[in-house]
């Protein structure tokens, strides 16, 4: 068994797999394990005309939209999960600042079905959910049709399969060959990664592959489907990561306060994104004391499993 070494820097991974115009699934585990560091690197590389895909993104979509990277959004919810609305997102939709964005409004379930269809290699999945809503008026991927299996002519919402150009997933630990363990809430992480053309994993830690293969049921997706593995300790901050750190609520609140106008948004990006040549600088800027306060409380470990017999 030969294993490819897919480890690279964040800079290299983004530059190689995220192109202008790419569709990017990011923040698929909802409030947890959001790849903020990867999102910031996309902003630093000034990618534009991106399509963002994600059910509920906390502030990351707001930041990327505020930075002008985004042309289109396929999402169920965009904003700031602590506060509600996201200022940059509102400015973009209401006033085309810094640019107009096109919305494809999904519900959580329709986005689930779109990515599930993608991961299963099927063209669409039908559902009764969202019938009667206006979501399809902003989303050409929701198509109402008569149920072809039903003589009564009942309508169904057909949800077209989605295949992101790239899915960026933040995991607890990964190996250089693409094996990874992700736990805590998964949201649509697996479906998005399986449906995507390329998968970038950012990881709290890089570990030997054999340590992950002691528990192949927890391997995130088959490693041959992973394009890049990047070590980024703290790479989800201010989002939480189970077993590593809590959500940095006050950082998130500061973001909301700071970005009420365009000047504030630009200042925030200058400070936290453009002012940080790499995530190591960002980590340092957050500071040891803050990281210490965010560390999750000690907990009992998971009940062990053995593939063979117990030793």
């Amino acid at each position: 068994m030969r294993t490819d070494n897919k480890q690279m820097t964040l800079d290299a991974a983004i530059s190689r797999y995220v192109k202008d115009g790419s569709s990017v699934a990011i923040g698929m585990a909802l409030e947890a394990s959001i790849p903020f560091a990867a999102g910031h690197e996309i902003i630093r590389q000034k990618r534009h005309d991106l399509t963002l895909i994600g059910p509920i993104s906390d502030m990351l979509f707001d930041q990327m939209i505020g930075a002008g990277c985004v042309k289109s959004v396929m999402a169920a919810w965009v904003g700031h999960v602590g506060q509600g609305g996201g200022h940059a997102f509102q400015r973009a939709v209401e006033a085309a600042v810094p640019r107009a964005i096109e919305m494809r409004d999904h519900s959580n379930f329709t986005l689930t079905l779109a990515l599930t269809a993608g991961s299963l290699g099927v063209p669409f999945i039908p559902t009764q959910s969202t019938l009667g809503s206006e979501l399809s008026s902003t989303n050409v991927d929701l198509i109402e049709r008569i149920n072809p299996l039903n003589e009564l002519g009942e309508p169904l919402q057909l949800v077209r399969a989605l295949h992101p150009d790239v899915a960026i997933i933040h995991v607890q630990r990964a190996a250089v060959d693409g094996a990874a363990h992700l736990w805590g809430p998964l949201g649509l992480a697996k479906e998005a990664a399986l449906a995507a053309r390329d998968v970038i994993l950012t990881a709290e830690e890089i570990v030997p592959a054999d340590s992950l293969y002691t528990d192949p049921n927890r391997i995130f997706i088959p490693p041959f489907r992973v394009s890049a593995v990047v070590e980024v300790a703290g790479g989800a901050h201010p989002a939480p990561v189970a077993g590593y750190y809590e959500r940095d609520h006050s950082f998130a609140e500061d973001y909301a306060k700071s970005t009420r106008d365009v000047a504030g948004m630009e200042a925030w990006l200058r400070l936290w994104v453009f002012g940080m040549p790499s995530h190591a600088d960002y980590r340092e800027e957050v500071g040891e004391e803050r990281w210490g306060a965010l560390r999750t409380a000690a907990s009992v470990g998971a009940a062990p499993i053995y593939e063979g017999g117990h030793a």
Partner: protein
Amino acid sequence: MSEGELMMIVAAAREIADGETVFVGMRRPMLAFALAQRLHAPSAVGLYENGIVRQRPTTPVARTMGDPRMTAGATWVGGMATVMGLLAQGHVDLGLLGAGQVDRFGNLNSSYIGDYARPERRLPGSGGSSDITSLAKRCVVLLPHQPQRLVEAVDYLTAPGHGSGSGWRDGVGLPATSAGTTVVVTDLAVLRADAEGELWLTALHAGATVEAVQAATGWPLKISDALRQSAAPTEEECAALAALRQG
């Protein structure tokens, strides 16, 4: 927390019966559900859209459903597809959710104020709300009572209540097992849907009057014959809520 806000959380919590499976939205719904779990509904099962099923309350309540304390001690953690699939199969008794606007027939708007093509204001969007009102057996919606929020007809229909009234849900193809928005709980009052899906004023919180509620409601509100005063928050409810909100 204002008294009205507190009453909104308490009144919503009271809608949850013990043992029910509840799809729990962000922020206010999380607090209301945690309160019910701590008090009268200890065996209620919470389903969260990020892929958590939880029967044990966290104290204090998590600020977001992705906080590590939501995972630790959860009864199941996995993906959104599983919890949404349980919802779509009809296994959810109650959806508990917020909204930007609700209208006379319980339709919700969480997307656009004004014309969606040129909106005055963009709200965060459906999240799970469109699925919850499509598929849960019944739904409790929490929102502040303001005339721009309780409107005659929503600007944009994010999540289906009863559309234009009787027969609408069936006509658009929603499942018969789901009743859409059945209760709206605000900081002033409780509104309940009748058989046609229209929301009636059924309870007033302390300090609220029919006139004040009508003035804060964008349609001529029907008043229930059985209109009553909401029972004031008990000491137990207040203490539990304070404990949940600490930290």
